[in-house]
């Protein structure tokens, strides 16, 4: 309803020195609990600043510290070093116990995205309950992706920035074992060397999917 228009900071002055820009990014990332996109950093910093460059410096500065600068998709955040987790009992948040079905569904969405419900069901060999999808949506680990260009134009699911943040992933390409799975043909819908079978005629989309897989937000 009410459109927010970022007011571009118009400054006649030159961009601040890079060391100062680094301080600014440090302050912004430090103050925020959620990842901040490069676009937002640039918007908040004085005109002419180069958030990407300053980020690279900042990241280096925090290497090996108790707090790190991490990339989450196209955004950045500060997070404590994982090896210090033991100090944080007080801050530890109760993790939601996920069912095996939910965990598998999440993994399938992450590795096969964008993926339709029918495809998830084909992989698991059982139907996916509405509750499982709802739970993952509710946790904001998955979201709806583009509709598939197949008959019925089914919705697809993709993982979110929140998912990447939670599992400490820079982007979906960093999923553990992704490359091996792909080269083993296990992200396809048919075994290597076999044509599409009647039961899984959607094979043609696969190559397309994989290029789509890392669509930007």
């Amino acid at each position, binding site marked *: 309803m009410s459109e927010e228009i970022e007011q571009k900071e118009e400054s006649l002055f030159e961009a601040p020195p890079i060391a100062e820009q680094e301080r600014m990014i440090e302050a912004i990332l430090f103050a925020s609990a959620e990842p901040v996109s490069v676009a937002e950093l640039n918007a908040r910093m004085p005109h002419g600043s180069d958030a990407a460059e300053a980020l690279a410096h900042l990241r280096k500065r925090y290497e090996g510290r108790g707090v790190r600068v991490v990339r989450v998709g196209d955004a950045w955040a500060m997070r404590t070093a994982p090896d210090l987790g033991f100090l944080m009992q007080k801050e530890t948040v109760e993790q939601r116990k996920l069912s095996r079905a939910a965990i598998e569904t999440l993994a399938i969405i992450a590795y096969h995205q964008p993926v339709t419900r029918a495809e998830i069901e084909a*992989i698991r060999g059982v139907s996916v309950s509405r509750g499982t999808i709802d739970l993952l949506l509710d946790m904001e680990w998955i979201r709806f992706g583009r509709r598939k260009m197949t008959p019925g134009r089914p919705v697809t699911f993709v993982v979110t920035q929140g998912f990447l943040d*939670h599992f*400490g992933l820079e982007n979906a390409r960093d999923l553990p*074992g992704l490359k091996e799975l792909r080269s083993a043909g*296990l992200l396809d819908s048919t075994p290597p060397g076999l044509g599409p079978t009647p039961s899984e005629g959607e094979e043609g989309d696969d190559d397309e999917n994989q290029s789509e897989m890392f669509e930007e937000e």
Partner: protein
Amino acid sequence: MTDSDQGSFEEDRMSVAERMAAEALIVDVDGFEGPLDVLLTLSRTQKVDLRKVSVLQLAQQYLSFVEKAKALRIELAADYLVMAAWLAFLKSRLLLPPDPTEEGPSGEELAAHLAFQLERLQAMRDVAARLMARDQLGRDFFKRGLPEDVTRLRTVTYSANLLDLMQAYARIRTRDEFRPFVLDRESVFTMEQALDRMRGLIGFAGQWTDILSYLPEGWETDPIKRRSATAATFAASLELAKEGHVEIRQSETFAPIELRRKD
């Protein structure tokens, strides 16, 4: 594996441990997530790389699993039975020499696809486990505990275009024209009012008098009011004549209408 002299590679090829495992499967059938899950578990009893799993043997294992379930009177969901039927079909395809007239994928292709499905499901389970074993936010690493909120300096600007403005004006100016139709009572003189008025006056009408002289004060000049009052007075005069209180006459068309008291 123990060789059996009975020839059939079915149950006897299974070790005691395997048999117990198979029985545990049945007892535990609720814990399985469908036929594919059962097949995957059964394939582990072959103790080989999933890529080298014997689908024929697996089909046999599954069929005997379903048989045992039936013997134990365990209700299996329909999809377990559908899988059993399909595996029975696959088994026959694998065992019989290929029929050149048969259409569709060969038994080997179907078997390869099943093996692929199992391998893929297992792969997904493996990566799911790896994913969950990662450091997790809120458990191993943490976000800022006391985020400093960004204060939003909100400037509100209002927008309206010329069309909005004109439509608004048009709306106001047409509002009047659209009130529901009601008679303007102020310029209507009813027959009842005329009757009341004339009843009080006819006592003095001993002579023929133009009925227009009975128009109420202030109604003679405004044409709308005059018309209404005239009509009401005329109607009231007729009513009084009907009741026998007055007499009415008119000398010719459009001549004044006169009335007088009837004694």
